[in-house]
C-alpha cells in the first residue's frame, strides 16, 4: 500500500497550497515488495497520466534505479517490467509524506495514508 502509482496522482490539497505541492516527499519509510499481475496494456494506458520526473526521483529515493530519466519512445518489455515493478510492487507501509510547499505531513500507517486536513487547512 501507498504504491508509487498512488503517490504519483496525489498532491497536497491544503488550503491555498496550489503550486509546488507535488510530489509529496516520503520520510521514514518502511517498504515492502509484493508481487502484482503484469498488465502491459494497463501500463501503456496509464503512462500519459504520470509525472515522469516525480516518479523516477521517488523511485531513486526509495532505492530503485531501474527507470530511465527520460520517458522512452519505445516501450519494450524490459522497460514495461521495470515500470510495473516501480508503480505497483513497491509498497510504503509506514512513514509519512510531506508537502514540498506548505510542509503539511500526511502520515502513513499500516499502508493507509491519512490525507485528512485540519479545520484551518480547508479552503
Amino acid at each position, binding site marked *: *500500500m501507498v504504491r508509487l502509482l498512488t503517490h504519483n496522482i496525489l498532491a497536497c490539497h491544503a488550503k491555498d497550497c496550489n503550486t509546488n505541492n507535488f510530489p509529496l516527499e516520503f520520510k521514514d519509510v518502511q517498504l515492502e515488495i509484493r508481487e502484482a499481475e503484469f498488465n502491459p496494456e494497463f501500463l501503456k494506458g496509464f503512462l500519459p497520466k504520470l509525472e515522469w520526473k516525480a516518479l523516477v526521483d521517488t523511485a531513486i529515493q526509495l532505492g530503485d534505479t531501474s527507470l530511465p530519466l527520460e520517458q522512452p519512445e519505445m516501450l519494450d518489455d524490459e522497460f514495461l517490467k521495470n515500470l510495473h515493478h516501480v508503480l505497483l510492487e513497491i509498497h510504503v507501509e509506514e512513514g509519512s509524506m510531506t508537502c514540498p510547499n506548505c510542509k503539511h505531513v500526511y502520515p502513513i500507517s499500516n*499502508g493507509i495514508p*491519512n490525507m485528512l486536513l485540519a479545520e484551518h487547512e480547508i479552503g
Partner: protein
Amino acid sequence: MPSRYLLHFAQAHDDFRLPELQSVAELYGITYSLPPREEDRDPTRPFMVIDLEDEEHARLLARRCILIKAVYEFYGQGSTYDELHEANRKSEPLWTRYVEDTSFRFLVTSSQHKIPQSRQRDVIESFAYMGFLGKIEMKNPDILLICFEEYEDRKGTTRAKYEGDGSFRQVFFGRLLEEGSARQLIGKFDVKKRVYYGNTSMESEISLLMANQTLASPGKLLYDPFMGTGSMAYPTTHFGALVFGSDIDGRQMRGKQKTPGVIRAATQYGTASRVIDLATFDVTHNPWRCGELFDAIVTDPPCKYGVRAGAKRLGRKKELTDHQKELCLQHSLSPRPQKTPLTLRYRDDQPYIPPTKPYELSHLAADLVLLARYLLKPGGRLVFFLPTVTEEYEDVDIYAMLCEGMDVIANSLQDFGSWGRRLVTIKKTTAEQHPPPSFKPPQVEDDQEVHVPAHKDFREKYFQGFKPKLEEEEP
C-alpha cells in the same frame, strides 16, 4: 446471420436485468437485439429470446450476467403446443444434427407450477416427430432439451396442486448451451462469509450487479470514494479490475487488526494485489492531482455526508425530513474521524462527530456527478445508489443532478415497498476536460426546504463558480 437464443433469467431484481445485459454485451462487444414486442421484453417474465451473432456470445453472457440462470439455443415457442411444434419443425436445420447419434435428456418443466408426471410424458411423446435415435441419458447426456411452460405469476393465491395445469401463458423449447455460472458468485461474495464486513456492507448480489454496471475487467482502474468496508471492491477486482478506495473514516477500511480489513477480505478472494490503495480523506477535500484517471467510479454514498465546512459555512444545520431519517436508519451512518488537539490533524482511527451541516442527498448526488465528470476518462461510468422514497421519487430527480457531458444510461429501482433505492449508471459522454467541482453547498437564504428550482439554482452556481470573477465576489 444472427441466431436466436433463449435466456432464462432469475426472477429477482427485474429492473436490473436489461441494464446488466446491455453492460455485459458492451463489455464483450456483443451486438444483440431484444424482442420487438414489449411484452416479450417484460423483465418480470422468466424467459426472453434475443438475437446474437455467435453462440459464443450467449456463453459469455451466461458466464458474466448475475441474473442469467441459463442460455439455450432457441427452437420455438407458442401459446399452445401446436404453435410450439409448428415453430420447432421450422427449426429443424438447427437440431437435425443431433438426430442420428446424440445421447439426450428431455425435460418438461415450468415456473411456479408443478406439471403432473403423466402430462410430462405426453409432452415428451408429442416431440416424437423429431425422431431422435440417440440414447436417453439421465446423468450425462450430450444434449439437454428443455420445454419450459410459463405460468402467470400467482403470488399469494392458493390453489390445488395441479390446478390450472396446461393453461400456461407461453411454452418455450430449446437446447441447453450453458448454465449461468456468474450466479454462483452470489454465494462466494456472501457478506456473512467475509472475514471483514460492517453494517454498511452491501449485499452480495447487488454489489455484483453494480460491478457489472462498471464494465469491470482486467486493465481497468476503478474508484470508490465512499469505500467503507469495501463491498464494491471485491466483485470488481474479482472481474480483474484494479480498485482505489477512500473514505473519510479510516476505521471503516481498517477494522481492528494491523492488516486493514479491506485487504484481509480481498486476500480471502485472492484479489488483494488489485486493491491499488486505500486512503483516508473527505471526498469534498480530495488530493487528486489531476482528472481523467478512472474507468469507473462505483459507490454507495452515505445518505447524508459531512462537508467539513470552513467557518463561514458553519451555521444552521438543516434538519433531515422524517423520510430521510428513515433512509439514514437503513443506511446506518458510520462514525467520523477524530481531531487530535495536539497536532490539529485528524486522526483516522478515532470516533469524531465533525462540525458539519448535513448535505442533502440531491446535492451529494450532483457533486458526485461533477466529481465523476472530472475524474473519469471519456466514456467512463459512474455507478451509484441513490436512496429514494418511492412516492417522492421526483424529489431526488435524477435529471436535476446531471451536468453537461454526463448522461444517464441506466436507472434501476430496488423496491423495498415504502422505500427503495435506485442504482444509477451515468456515462461520461464528453471528451472535454472539466474542472473539479467546488463542493460548495448551495446558499440557502432561509430554513425552507430546498426544492427542485433551488437545485437548478445550485447547479447554475456551480457552473458560474467555475468562472474566477464570480468566485471572488463570494464573501
